[in-house]
């Protein structure tokens, strides 16, 4: 398969860009940030997205989705990255939909995919338990009790966890904290009285939640995938998430870079355009090269998720690592090359810097993935 978008995917890209530029420019994101709606995003915007088929972008048509696959999801995420669009797209349309569609039972698909596609239900994945991404350490416990399980434990940095209708909780049904065996995924109602959620506003003005569960009783029907064998499913869901986050960071990088090169062509000091200074030109040229490398990595990971989902793990890690580093460089350079206005709240480049930092933290930064890849490669 050629490493470029198909015509259909290009059309999706154009329409996404048109829609978001009109309905969700950065000013819309600022409004959400300043007005602080309880949800942390604009519900109307999410409903409009769902209507266009974005909430069901990876979901098969038979379940109400638009079946554009992960390349489609990445194309949308990239444009959302460009405009800093806040929405439950990632938590619900990517993570939730992947969990149910790839690992759910027929009944779970029938029950939940429709509600994902029409935007009526928000999903959130609760995986991490500490300040840094570490899916190989799961202490959250699921103890057998009668015919079911009792869930207890706490989770951190659950994106959209404060507003989710459903939580997918990664829990331990057996073994030690760091065992791959013994992990099980549970799908639970987020408003159960045994669950307390506290919203944690983040530096990028998006919201996540810390979640504490105390003795929630669930049944075997609430399990996604296999009992004790949930690590593979978790890996699959995280891989999809990593590739889509990489796509989002690609969009943010390109936008921050475009703003910077525009500025280099306009701003004058010492009687000349600052873009004529070689000290800045070479940094911009280096960054432009890194951005091209990142885009290739991102597209490859998305294509592989569509082609051979189970085999995409390593490639998604590489894409996440490459895009995390590139996006951080792009946004840091954007601030520096803008000079004083780069550090003002009024100017947008700082918003990209903050968002990229969170996207880089989520599901593993470049160092995390370099470690993971080294391990896989046997060194």
């Amino acid at each position: 398969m050629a490493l470029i978008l198909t015509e259909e995917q290009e059309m999706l890209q154009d329409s996404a860009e048109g829609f978001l530029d009109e309905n969700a420019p950065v000013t819309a994101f600022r409004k959400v940030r300043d007005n602080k709606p309880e949800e942390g995003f604009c519900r109307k915007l999410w409903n409009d997205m769902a209507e266009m088929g974005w909430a069901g972008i990876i979901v098969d048509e038979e379940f109400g989705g638009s079946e554009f696959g992960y390349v489609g999801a990445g194309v949308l995420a990239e444009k959302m990255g460009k405009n800093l669009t806040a929405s439950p797209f990632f938590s619900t349309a990517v993570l939730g939909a992947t969990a149910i569609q790839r690992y759910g039972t027929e009944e779970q698909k029938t029950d939940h995919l429709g509600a994902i596609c029409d935007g009526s239900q928000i999903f959130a994945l609760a995986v991490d338990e500490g300040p840094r991404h570490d899916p190989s350490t799961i202490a959250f416990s699921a103890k057998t009790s009668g015919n079911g399980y009792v869930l207890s434990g706490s989770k951190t940095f659950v994106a959209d966890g404060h507003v989710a209708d459903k939580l997918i909780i990664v829990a331990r049904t057996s073994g030690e904290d760091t065992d791959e065996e013994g992990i099980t995924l549970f799908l639970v109602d987020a408003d159960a009285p045994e669950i307390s959620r506290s919203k944690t506003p983040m530096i990028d003005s998006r919201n996540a939640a810390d979640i504490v569960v105390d003795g929630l009783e669930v049944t075997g029907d609430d399990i996604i995938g296999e009992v004790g064998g949930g690590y593979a499913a978790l890996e699959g869901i995280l891989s999809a998430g990593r590739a889509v986050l990489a796509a989002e960071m690609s969009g943010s990088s390109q936008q921050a870079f475009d703003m910077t090169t525009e500025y280099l062509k306009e701003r004058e000091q010492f009687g000349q355009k600052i873009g004529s200074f070689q000290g800045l030109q070479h940094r911009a040229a280096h960054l432009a090269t890194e951005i091209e490398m990142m885009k290739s990595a991102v597209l490859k990971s998305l294509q592989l998720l569509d082609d051979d989902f189970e085999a995409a793990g390593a490639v998604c890690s590489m894409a996440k690592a490459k895009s995390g580093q590139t996006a951080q460089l792009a946004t840091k350079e954007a601030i520096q090359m803008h000079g004083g206005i780069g550090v003002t709240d009024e100017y947008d480049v700082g918003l990209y810097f903050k968002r990229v930092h969170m996207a880089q933290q989520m599901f593993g930064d470049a160092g995390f993935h370099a470690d993971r890849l080294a391990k896989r490669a046997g060194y």
Partner: protein
Amino acid sequence: MTELEEFRTETRAWLAENCPEEMRDGDITAENQCWGGRQWEFQSEAQRLWFERALAKGYTVPTWPKKYGGAGLSADEAKILEEERLRINARKPLSNFGISMLGPALLAYGTHEQKLQHLGAIARGEIRWCQGYSEPGAGSDLASLKTKCEDKGAHWLINGQKIWTSNADISDWIFCLVRTDFDAPKHKGITFILIDMASEGISVKPIILISGHSPFCETFFDNVKVPKSYGENNLSVVGEVNRGWDVAKNLLVHERGMLGTMSPLRGTTGPESLGGFAADQIGLDEAGRLSDPALRQRISQAEIDDWAYNLTVERMNDEANAGNGLGAKSSMLKYAASELTKKGTELRMDIGGTVAATISEDGIEYGSLANTWLYNRAYSILGGTTEVQLNIISKRVLELPS
């Protein structure tokens, strides 16, 4: 089955039948590739067979028109051939600067007769070309070159010196940039000319580099007479007199494209991965990790960069096939590839420690890691330095002001 699918099936079968086993080692180092030329001697019977079979099929230069010795393959077909070749790890039957650099420039700027003579000889492996661009006073500022070319009626008279002419000592012809007008602005007085290295007055002196060896030479022109014409409609000058810079630029894009397609981390040091090499040399801890955690991170990061680079070559090729030409973006590939290549051997030297830095009484062994590591310093200098590539990206891709 579509036509392309059919082509793939046929190509696969042809390769299976015609590429000798010994030529399927994927090894394409400068030492064992088939260069061709007047002085060429095949290194093995398999190499000769593979070359001759490919030649008969037009596969020494698959995309060139049939009348000039190629197979006339479309971009899609050429990509399939390349994929199928790599699938069985086959060497290229013939590779040299004639194929990768002069050929594309002649296809763009040559007359039919020029193409007939020179492209045919390249395709048949008869003539090995070298490139006469840089001069002692014209490196990054190539357009300031001063090798003098005077019009003497029936012939040109050339005096001057070229430097960094790769393999000039074993090449048959040289494509050369010379100055035909010393009064015009520097880009407007340059001419692109084809010269037989056997001409009287040409002398060549190899240059020894920090690596202890080198393919590079100095080439001296002392009253060299070059015929105006090698036959009807077949001038020694390519393109117009004083417009050679256009041809040179076109060719540099191909050179950068070529330098940009080396597989950076493995290209020159064999197929073993950095991680595997490090595990052998340094050992693993109880958790199966390399005992040096900082080195481990550097290796893994380099592998990620290498992977993203290779994908970018693939993507840019696919974009070019879809009609979006690479243009000045080839400078990005050149820049990234040369920096990554250096990083790869730097890492290997760090992994190898003092053992890798040990040489023999006779000096640095050719083909050794230390030799490659030292030679690789030149990658970000030759074919336009890293800094020149960054200038080109700034001006021609990003359109930053000057």
